[in-house]
């Protein structure tokens, strides 16, 4: 037996079972070491990334945003202590399923808006109060968020909403009736508006 064969035997002998990422995540959460947990969920709009802090849902990302890039940004903007942990996000995933199935009109999971600041955050707070199936103009959102002249800033806050769907920025449309920008793309926004109008 030559050296390489010995090393291969060793490697093979000690490689294999025992890795338990779920147990690690559970222990990490118990010890307060898990700052961000995430999972993905399938939806009619494609795969969605859901990420939560201990405070609540902090990010919902469409696949066109590139989930890996989104996670890398969360690592630098919130904390690199990020693990895939389906459990903390079970309820959010379940509510999104119900929403897409037409069985849910409002979300009750806690939301963490720490990625939005200042006026943008006021806009998001207001968006949460726009009911299912109702649309508003960017001008009216700017007014409700406390700065009637900041229509463009309101539009920008909507198109950068870190928690789309759950914070329903898709319910804000242009005054001329066209849909306007959306993180998930204009087609996704039209699909959601059509779904809610039908329900």
């Amino acid at each position, binding site marked *: *037996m*030559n*050296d390489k064969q*010995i*090393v291969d*035997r*060793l*490697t093979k*002998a*000690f*490689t*294999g*079972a*025992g*890795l*338990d*990422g779920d*147990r*690690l995540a559970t*222990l*990490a959460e118990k*010890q307060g*070491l*898990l700052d*961000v947990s*995430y999972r993905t969920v399938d939806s009619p709009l494609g795969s969605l990334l859901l990420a939560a802090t201990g405070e609540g849902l902090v990010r919902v990302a469409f696949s066109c945003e590139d989930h890996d890039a989104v*996670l*890398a940004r*969360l*690592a*630098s*903007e919130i*904390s*690199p*202590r*990020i*693990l*895939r942990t389906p459990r903390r996000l079970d309820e959010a995933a379940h509510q999104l399923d119900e929403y897409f199935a037409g069985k849910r009109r409002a979300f009750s999971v806690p939301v963490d808006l720490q*990625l939005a*600041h200042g006026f943008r955050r006021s806009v998001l707070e207001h968006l949460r109060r726009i009911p299912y199936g109702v649309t508003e103009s960017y001008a009216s959102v700017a007014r409700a968020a406390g700065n009637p002249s900041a229509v463009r800033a309101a539009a920008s806050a909507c198109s950068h909403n870190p928690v789309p769907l759950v914070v329903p920025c898709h319910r804000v449309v242009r005054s001329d009736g066209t849909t306007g920008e959306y993180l998930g793309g204009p087609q996704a926004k039209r699909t959601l508006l059509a779904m809610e109008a039908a329900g």
Partner: protein
Amino acid sequence: MVRPRDPALPPFEEVVAEHGPVVMRVCRALLGQADAADAWSETFLSALEAYPNLQPGSSIRGWLVTIAHRKAIDQLRGAARRPQPASDLPEVPADDPGESSVDDKLRGALDALPPKQRGAVIYRYLADLSYAEVGELLESSATAARRSAADGIANLRKHFSKGDRP
């Protein structure tokens, strides 16, 4: 406020995915299968705790293996103190009997090596660390680590050529 950290650390999940198997291999070689799962979780928990302060550009594998090395030492010391450690962990499914007897022979041979040789073989060949890193872990020099690893492999080869062939 958004607080960008300079050269951003990747999400810890990526660290687990990339280095989890190597760390498990090291834990199994150091401790045996039953205690390896514990040591593996302990290693990654400690790493997770310290992760945000990790110096950018440091070798993540070397850092993790160093933590695993310390966890293994802690476990062996703990096991020596305790009469019979009660483990409430689910047992890892048993390997098929043929394979595990091969493992036992290999384990016996590895465990029979002098400690420095055993460490050098594990850290150089199973963890793929540099001789400099191995030397640091074993509190000796890179040159000594290289010699220990070579002697260790030579002893394993002798062991297998003594008709003790699997």
